[in-house]
C-alpha cells in the first residue's frame, strides 16, 4: 500500500475530489446527487413502513415475502441497492441485527447506520450476549421470548418489523409511526405506547 494513503483524511479527500472530477470519474454534481438521495432515507421512512404493516395485513404479508419490491411500491428507490429482507418479531421470537464483519445496514430504507451499529463493542457483543447488549438501551424482553441474532454478512440487508405495542387499537398510521424509532428496526429496543 502506498504511504500516500496515510495522508490526513480531509486532505486526501480534497486531492481526490479534484483528480476524479478532472478524469470524469466522479464529478461534484454526481456526488451531490448521491448525497441528496442518501439523505432522503431515514428512520422516519422505516417507521412509516412499520406502521403500514401494522395496519394493513396484505401489505404486511407482501413486505415479509418480498421486502425490496414492496417498499419500492411505496416509492422508495431500491435500484442498485441490495435486496431488503424484513424479519417479523412475535411474542415468542425477537430479532437483533448486527454486522460483525463491517456495517451492513438497510440504508435504502433507514438511512446512514447509527454510530453504535458500527462500533467494535456492538459488533462483538451482539452475537455472544444479545440480552446484555440490549440492556444498554434499557431493553428487557419477557423470559419466554427467544432471541434470534441476525449477522448480516452478505448480500441482503435486514430490517426488523417490531411488535405493535398494546393499547394502540384504532390508532392512525401517523400516530403509530411516531412510536417507532431507529433502534426498534434493528432490534436493540422495542416500541411502546406508554
Amino acid at each position: 500500500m502506498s504511504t500516500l494513503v496515510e495522508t490526513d483524511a480531509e486532505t486526501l479527500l480534497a486531492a481526490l475530489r479534484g483528480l476524479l472530477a478532472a478524469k470524469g470519474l466522479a464529478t461534484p454534481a454526481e456526488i451531490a446527487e448521491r448525497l441528496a438521495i442518501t439523505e432522503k432515507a431515514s428512520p422516519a421512512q422505516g417507521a412509516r413502513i412499520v406502521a403500514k404493516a401494522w395496519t394493513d395485513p396484505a401489505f404486511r404479508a407482501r413486505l415479509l415475502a418480498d421486502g425490496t419490491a414492496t417498499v419500492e411500491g411505496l416509492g422508495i428507490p431500491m435500484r442498485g441497492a441490495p435486496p431488503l429482507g424484513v424479519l417479523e418479531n412475535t411474542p415468542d421470537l425477537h430479532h437483533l441485527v448486527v454486522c460483525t464483519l463491517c456495517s451492513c445496514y438497510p440504508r435504502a430504507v433507514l438511512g446512514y447506520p447509527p454510530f453504535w451499529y458500527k462500533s467494535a463493542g456492538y459488533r462483538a457483543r451482539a452475537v455472544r450476549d444479545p440480552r446484555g447488549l440490549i440492556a444498554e438501551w434499557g431493553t428487557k424482553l419477557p423470559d419466554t421470548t427467544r432471541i434470534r441474532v441476525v449477522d448480516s454478512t452478505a448480500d441482503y440487508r435486514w430490517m426488523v418489523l417490531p411488535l405493535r405495542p398494546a393499547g394502540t387499537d384504532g390508532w392512525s398510521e401517523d400516530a403509530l409511526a411516531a412510536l417507532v424509532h431507529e433502534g426498534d428496526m434493528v432490534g436493540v429496543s422495542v416500541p411502546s405506547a406508554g
Partner: protein
Amino acid sequence: MDLAPGTEVRVKDDWPETRGPCHIRTPHYVRGRRGRILRRLGAFPNPEDLAFARPAPTRALYHVLFDETALFPDSRQGDDLLVELFEHWLEPA
C-alpha cells in the same frame, strides 16, 4: 449442490487468512460449527472474487441457523443465530 430447508450442514473449518490476502464473508465464530438451512436467499457473485476485481462466478447464498449454545457455550438455551453463508463454505453434516 442445492440444500433444502432443514438440511443439517457444517461450516468448513477453513482459515484463508493464513494463506495470504483474502476477503471472506464467513465469520470466524461459525467455522467448523453445525447449523441448519433455513432458506435459500438466491445466488450472488462471489464477494471473495469481487473484492479483488476478479471475474466473480455466482454462488448460492443460504440463511443458516445455529443454536447460540453451539457457538458460545455460555449463552442462553433457546436463543439462536442466523447468518448468510455461501454454498462453497457449507458441507452436509
